[in-house]
């Protein structure tokens, strides 16, 4: 639902066509134009709002409620429904679910964002290499990507996670006074390294179309080196699809973490995540508050990201009608 009133229609057109040098001096970059479209995209703004809410929840929450609350357990008050003292109730060993969704949320969001960074980094690198070098490199990399794509990601992630989460080899670590399970770091790499394939395909296809452009030929003929052509001419053209897949990548990383956690095979104790709280709550169906709140936060986050991602796609590609 992008409002497509820029460039040739409406007010901005006057400015583009204006002959007054003072007005034209600045020019409007493609990126700035896209961002302006994004601001008018109601669903994207709604998505940003949702995300801000979730981020503020985990940030302000951790300022108000100390971490010790999320780990303090008292079996005598287990599975208590929401009350003034515990707004989200308590879990099976009497921990406050509100505090656990705050600290678990921090970990879930951290995993989502860092796994996305790895996914984008690897995907972009592979896509650039395959598209720019072509030939055997392209063939091998793309067959490898295809091979990885034809196996369900959850299966791949499960196996990889098991291989690299031996607690004797990767012990818990302490960071800023909090103890974390090393599986938290492992899962970031596992999710990142099992989800780069789509990004690499997108980047590769952009590279293939850009490579044939005259300005790349021009750059090549004045003696620019390959890496310069890649960084200055090819990469900027890939930015739009990369930003869109990065946004949506955070959502799928958070979801995958949640599924792994739900199966009880994700991040291990003592580190809570929205996913592994769900995994514990799975057997206590009657205590609805136990699973409802972490699932709600997963949903809000994923929904916010999907709205934003869709808005970004519309903003970068004004032709798309979605």
């Amino acid at each position, binding site marked *: 639902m992008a409002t497509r009133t820029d460039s040739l229609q409406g007010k901005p057109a006057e400015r583009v066509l204006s002959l007054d040098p003072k007005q034209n001096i600045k020019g409007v970059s493609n990126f700035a134009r896209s961002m302006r479209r994004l601001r008018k995209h109601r669903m994207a703004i709604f998505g940003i709002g949702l995300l801000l809410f979730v981020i503020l929840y985990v940030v302000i929450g951790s300022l108000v409620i100390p971490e010790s609350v999320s780990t303090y357990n008292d079996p005598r008050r287990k599975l208590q429904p929401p009350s003034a003292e515990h707004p989200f109730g308590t879990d099976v060993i009497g921990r406050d679910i509100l505090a656990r969704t705050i600290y678990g949320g921090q970990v879930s969001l951290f995993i989502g964002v860092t796994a996305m960074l790895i996914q984008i980094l690897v995907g972009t690198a592979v896509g650039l290499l395959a598209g720019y070098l072509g030939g055997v490199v392209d063939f091998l990399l793309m067959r490898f990507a295809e*091979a990885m794509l*034809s196996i*369900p990601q959850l299966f791949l992630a499960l*196996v990889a996670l098991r291989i690299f989460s031996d607690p004797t080899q990767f012990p818990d670590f302490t960071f800023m006074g909090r103890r974390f399970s090393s599986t938290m770091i492992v899962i970031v790499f596992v999710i990142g390294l099992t989800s780069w394939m789509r990004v690499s395909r997108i980047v590769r296809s952009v590279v293939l179309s850009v490579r044939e452009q005259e300005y790349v030929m021009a750059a090549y003929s004045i003696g620019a080196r390959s890496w310069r052509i890649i960084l200055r001419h090819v990469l900027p053209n890939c930015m739009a699809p990369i930003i869109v897949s990065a946004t949506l990548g955070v959502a799928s990383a958070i979801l995958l973490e949640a599924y792994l956690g739900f199966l009880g095979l994700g991040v291990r104790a003592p580190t809570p995540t929205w996913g592994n709280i769900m995994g514990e709550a799975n057997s206590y169906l009657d205590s609805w508050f136990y*699973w409802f709140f972490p*699932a709600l936060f997963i*949903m809000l986050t*994923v929904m916010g990201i*999907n709205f934003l991602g869709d808005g970004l796609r519309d903003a970068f590609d004004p032709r798309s*009608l979605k």
Partner: protein
Amino acid sequence: MTRYVVQRALQSIPLLLIISFILFNFTNALGDPMAVYAESRNRPSARDREIIMRRLGLDRPILEQYLIWLIGNDWMPPIDVYGDGSRLERGTRRGVLRGDLGISFVTRRPSWTRIEERLPWTLILMVPSYVLTVGLAIAIGIFSAVRQYSFWDNLITSLSFFFYSMPIFFVALLTIYIFAVQFKRWGLEPIKWGGTGDGTLGSLLQHMVLPVFCLVAIQLAGYVRFVRSSMLEVLNQDYIRTARAKGLAESQVVRRHAFKNAALPLVTLIGLDLPFLLAGAVVTERIFAWPGMGRLFIESFERADVPVMMAILMVLSVAVVVFQLLTDIVYTWLDPRIRYS
């Protein structure tokens, strides 16, 4: 065309080899498969362990193990079972290429029989929910697209966004909580869930209601969005205006001119998604205690039952590759504008 198909089929052979090699290395790194034996009732002694290792070929380097998995060891030099040359046994494995997917470490029966037991259950669950999903998605997607930006279109778009972002366990737990737990409290007949029922058709159908509902609710959103956007794209084409201009009824325009063309990308999507139905739905099967392929994978994963895991993954990969090829062929048949050379 024939040449193109043959070429594609030949290309998929190295692809499957790469897939199987990656997977073999992966699954074999899972941990000590002998741990399963160590847990069994008649716990083997250290010497027996060694013998079992040799019989299974687990003492060999990974590349050789892969070769045995691929083409069997019945033609290789006999196995020195005791390690001192006093007893030589011929290998009995024929390898995947000759249809032998190996013996499960856990049940000691062929991996394929494990899959044969579970696959029907997965299909019973996945096929109806997939058919429902696609059918409903086409109906809702078209309904929404021809009323673009109307109240109904906005409602459907928002709802599909909502369900698209729902993790499936949330939908599943909510529906169980409402239709089973709360219904009982309200004095209504709760819907039965968990497992596949007592063997009668009625009970099976009742146990299918909730999981099918969840699977449809989750998958539907994505498909509705897809149908809607490809319909919108087609509805803006010149030939639709022409069809309207020559006085065709709107229903004719939508059904015969627009939908037929909008269905083309949908065919691709379905073709690429179909093979993954075989994988079952890991989370859904877990919640509803459904004995399908997803559960089988998790079970074999938890016990490091490498042959069964490899069998499942390879069946899937072959299905994915075959369906990709089929999709391409169907596509050329449906859309005469496309010609592969």
